[in-house]
């Protein structure tokens, strides 16, 4: 009996030592990824998209040959700085809650005469939809370091928050997934990508405060619309339409939750 007890203790120690080693291993690989990201941060190709976005904002374009400089992003016509951290919000002229990209589609249509279908029915990274992403990158960058503070004074904004919350927890699709399956708990990850907990403020430059972002692995600039669309694709849901109410409602939910978090846009991802 004493022998048996002794061997049991030895095994227990062995197991403990093993799990300790695994823990140390995990820490160093996460640290290594962090270092890699830091190296990439210097020379983020998102700058190239920022430059393109700035040009698209200032250059007269479209059938009406006008620039976007009179576009009202919520802080008055032409005010760009600080607009990003207060979107999505309610707009009187359209009578709708809009996120940055759906607002840009409105401005491109009313000011420049560009058909919204060119963006909404377009492809990621092509044509007017790529232009919208570049514009969102530049506009987002003008609020870098500012804290998110989405307005919730309009009843429609509060309704959209509630709708977004329900969508976030709504399970469905072939895998019976919800946004909350990956983003509803602390410490989850896919491969080596840490998944932020999005039911509360996840921290500066994380989650809603990190997109648009440049993705090194495919060399693409991804906007928030693209991010949400791909989350749904990964959940095996039908992909939502560009700038649809579903995506805006989720944006309101994530944005309001991120209150006080500082924007790091544009960021760089693996």
């Amino acid at each position, binding site marked *: 009996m004493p022998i048996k007890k002794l061997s049991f203790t030895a095994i227990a120690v062995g197991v403990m030592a093993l799990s300790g080693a695994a823990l140390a291993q995990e820490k160093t690989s996460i640290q290594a990824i962090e270092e890699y990201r830091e190296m990439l941060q*210097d*020379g983020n*190709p998102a*700058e*190239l998209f920022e*430059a*393109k976005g700035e040009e698209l904002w200032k250059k007269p374009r479209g059938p009406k040959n006008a620039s976007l400089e009179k576009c009202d992003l919520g802080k008055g016509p032409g005010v760009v700085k600080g607009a990003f951290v207060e979107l999505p919000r309610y707009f009187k002229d359209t009578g709708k809650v809009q996120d940055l990209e759906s607002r840009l589609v409105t401005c491109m249509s009313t000011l420049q005469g560009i058909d919204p279908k060119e963006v909404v029915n377009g492809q990621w990274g092509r044509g007017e939809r790529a232009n919208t992403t570049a514009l969102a990158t530049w506009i987002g960058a003008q609020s870098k370091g500012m804290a998110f503070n989405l307005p919730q004074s309009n009843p429609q904004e509060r309704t959209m928050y509630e709708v977004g919350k329900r969508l976030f927890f709504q399970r469905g699709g072939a895998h019976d997934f919800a946004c909350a399956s990956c983003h509803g708990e602390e410490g989850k990850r896919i491969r080596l990508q840490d998944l932020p907990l999005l039911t509360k403020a996840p921290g500066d430059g994380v989650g809603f405060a990190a997109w648009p972002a440049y993705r*090194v692995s495919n*060399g693409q600039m991804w906007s928030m619309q693209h991010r949400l669309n791909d989350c749904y694709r990964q959940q095996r849901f039908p992909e939502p339409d560009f700038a649809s109410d579903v995506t805006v409602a989720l944006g309101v939910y994530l944005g309001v939750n991120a209150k006080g978090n500082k924007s790091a846009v544009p960021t760089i991802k693996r």
Partner: protein
Amino acid sequence: MADPMRIRAQAAGDKATVRVLMSHEMESGQRKDASGKLVPAWHISDVTASLNGKPVFSCEWGPAVSKNPFLQFNVKGAKAGDKVSVTWKDNKGDTRTDEATVS
């Protein structure tokens, strides 16, 4: 016409650090498109840099360099106010030159 580069040059001590971000597809020539046809190679093949018109740096690039490449190098003897010019040329003959002032 190729998109502009972003060049930053900062002097520290007797040298300047130059950081260049180039906008280029950098297609390796190894990938196939949806119909199974090889996508032809299209990448930057030569990069040169000069300080106040005098060549200080040159290299040959191949298909292994990433899309939208980032390049960093040091130039000895560069002072604030000097002009750094960077040129790339790709295998299709397209070229782009941009200039920045050392700060």
